[in-house]
């Protein structure tokens, strides 16, 4: 029996909601098989990976902390991907934001004041957006592939932060250890009262996602973004400038990635190190797709992906699995999401008997 895909007359309503859930379930099954193949007790591994992080207060907080950058970046990428523009350099914009936001606490070390933190967040956003302008402008002006340019910027920014913490911003008291000085108190993102470690970043992330949802649904410019992606010709005829959209979505996604960078640094390590991101910018691509290119969906998706980070750390400690297990699970998750999304638009049917010239 052979199967084939047939386009549905209209998108399947049920699957539109259910496909991410099915994809997560399918990922659990595939991950279990994967663990069994590499010779780990698969039941134990699945428990450590997906359940144990939910059971302790500290690890639940940790999930929210890790989810913060993922939600911020993922929601921004949602806007970008909806317009059929591919910013895959969020990892670089995250670093750019962290660097730009650190100009106050590190470039002007010792400056205190209530205005320090807001200015840092603003600079973080600006830094990320500025870094994203390089691929955006090169795309608009020269037609250079935004995918490749934004990705190249990731490597360049990783080298830049590495250089910064070893040279101009190196902590003079670190005995040559590559890290910056610790931020002063007014440059720290405070912990939400009543929690141990959870800083205000998660609130910023949720507010930003909700705003983007409003922007896409209720604001004219958001509508332009969606039309430009879904029906580029219609958008052009109605006078929407494609170049303007490319610049806008890169500014939004880059800016939010930059904001995520400074939020994560000011709320977490509170200093710069040679490596400041465990791949948040790339994982956020999965967040955007798992959230079905919906900023509110990105909140839930961000939490799930954060769970895999914390679960992965647990698996390292408990089961001696290597750190890359997390990436493998995340990769499987993205594969599953993409495959299940197919069934929103298509259905399977048994191939009818070969009739005439159609089959080759």
């Amino acid at each position, binding site marked *: 029996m052979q199967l*084939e*895909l*047939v*386009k549905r007359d209209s998108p399947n309503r049920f699957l539109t909601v259910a496909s991410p859930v099915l994809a997560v379930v399918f990922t659990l099954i595939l991950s279990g098989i994967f663990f069994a193949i*590499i010779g780990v007790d698969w039941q134990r591994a699945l428990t450590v990976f997906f359940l144990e992080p939910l059971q302790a207060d500290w690890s639940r907080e940790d999930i929210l902390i890790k989810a913060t950058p993922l939600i911020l970046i993922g929601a921004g990428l949602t806007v970008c991907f909806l317009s059929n523009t*591919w910013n*895959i350099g969020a990892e670089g914009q995250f670093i750019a934001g962290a660097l730009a936001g650190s100009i106050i606490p590190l470039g002007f070390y010792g400056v205190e004041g209530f205005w320090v933190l807001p200015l840092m967040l603003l600079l973080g956003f600006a830094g990320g957006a500025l870094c994203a302008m*390089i691929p955006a402008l*090169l795309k608009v002006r*020269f*037609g*250079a*592939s935004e*995918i*490749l*340019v934004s*990705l*190249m*910027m990731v*490597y*360049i920014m990783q*080298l*830049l932060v*590495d*250089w910064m913490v070893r*040279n101009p911003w190196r902590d003079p008291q670190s005995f040559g250890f590559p890290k910056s000085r610790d931020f002063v108190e007014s440059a720290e993102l405070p912990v939400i009262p009543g929690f141990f470690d959870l800083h205000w970043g998660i609130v910023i992330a949720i507010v930003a996602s909700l705003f983007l949802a409003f922007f896409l649904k209720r604001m004219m410019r958001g509508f332009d973004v969606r039309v430009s992606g879904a029906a580029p010709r219609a958008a052009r005829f109605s006078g929407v400038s494609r170049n303007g959209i490319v610049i806008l979505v890169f500014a939004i996604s880059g800016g939010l990635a930059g904001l995520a960078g400074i939020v994560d640094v000011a709320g977490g390590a509170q200093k710069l190190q040679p490596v400041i991101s465990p791949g948040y910018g*790339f*994982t956020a*691509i*999965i967040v955007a*797709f798992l959230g079905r290119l919906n900023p509110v969906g990105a909140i839930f998706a961000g939490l799930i992906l954060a769970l895999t980070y914390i679960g992965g750390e647990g698996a390292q400690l408990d089961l001696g699995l*290597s*750190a*890359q*297990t*997390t*990436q*493998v*699970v*995340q*990769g*499987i998750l*993205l*594969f599953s999401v*993409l*495959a299940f*999304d*197919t069934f929103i638009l*298509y259905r399977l049917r048994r191939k009818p008997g070969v009739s005439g*010239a*159609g089959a*080759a």
Partner: protein
Amino acid sequence: MMDLAQAFILTVITAATPLLLAAMGELVVERSGVLNLGVEGMMLTGAVAAFAATQITGSPYIGVLAGAAAGVALSMVFGILVLLFVTNQVATGLALTLFGLGLSGLLGAGYVGVPGIKLAPLLPALPESSPEFLSAFWTVFMQQDILVYLSIASVPLIIYLLRRTRAGLVLRAVGDNHTSAHALGYSVIWVRFLAVAFGGAMAGLGGAYLSLVYTPQWTEGMVAGRGWIALALVVFASWLPMRVAVGAYLFGAVTLLQFHLQAIGVSIPAQLLNALPYIATIVVLVLISGNRRLIAINTPASLGKSFVPDR
């Protein structure tokens, strides 16, 4: 002087070979109308598979085969999703790279720091008594390993395949207009599967070159963006094999700059030197993309578009 020239040429060849292998594979894939952004992931998996197989069997040649096989295996995951499940090609390619990063790190965890076995040159060295000029020539051009020769041979072979054979014509037809190719009775999906598998094999070989010749050892993430540079090379070359070769060797020369600026003692931060290939990629993309006419003529018209046979 002879030594210096020899070192220059060797550096360029060594740096260009992995790029050339991966880019020639991706060129065939894109000519069939499929954009596989998973080159980086396939190269990494190829690199670790080649290294592991070499350690286990003691034979770098089996390593080379394992590298290619790993590349094909990973490319088939991409192929099934993109061709059968008609998923978004950009997103699926990215997923492949993320997956490959993780998988290679996982498989290679036990091999970090293990001294590698280098893939030996194909031909023996000349006797010590040979004249200096001849031995220099011999070392540079005749003492390369099989992957270098394979990468160079792939250029005329693929030109011939694309321009002079029926298979090449079908491949290009599928890439330029999948609807017409389908109407003519060609199986778009099978042609693309073969192209994607070929791309996987070549990327795997490129990775194998890195872990068997270039370093020769396994370090996590050792491909370091070369998969992405290979993708850029295909655009730079406007989908023409000869230009891919020129581009790969130009990039090899950038690496040369990187090593020798440091050796001469110019005081430039190491990070800036390391960033050179990435900066060069951006510059090159801008220069070539500025010529929109050239790009428009050569871009496979169906590139990146999903195909569902209309029945």
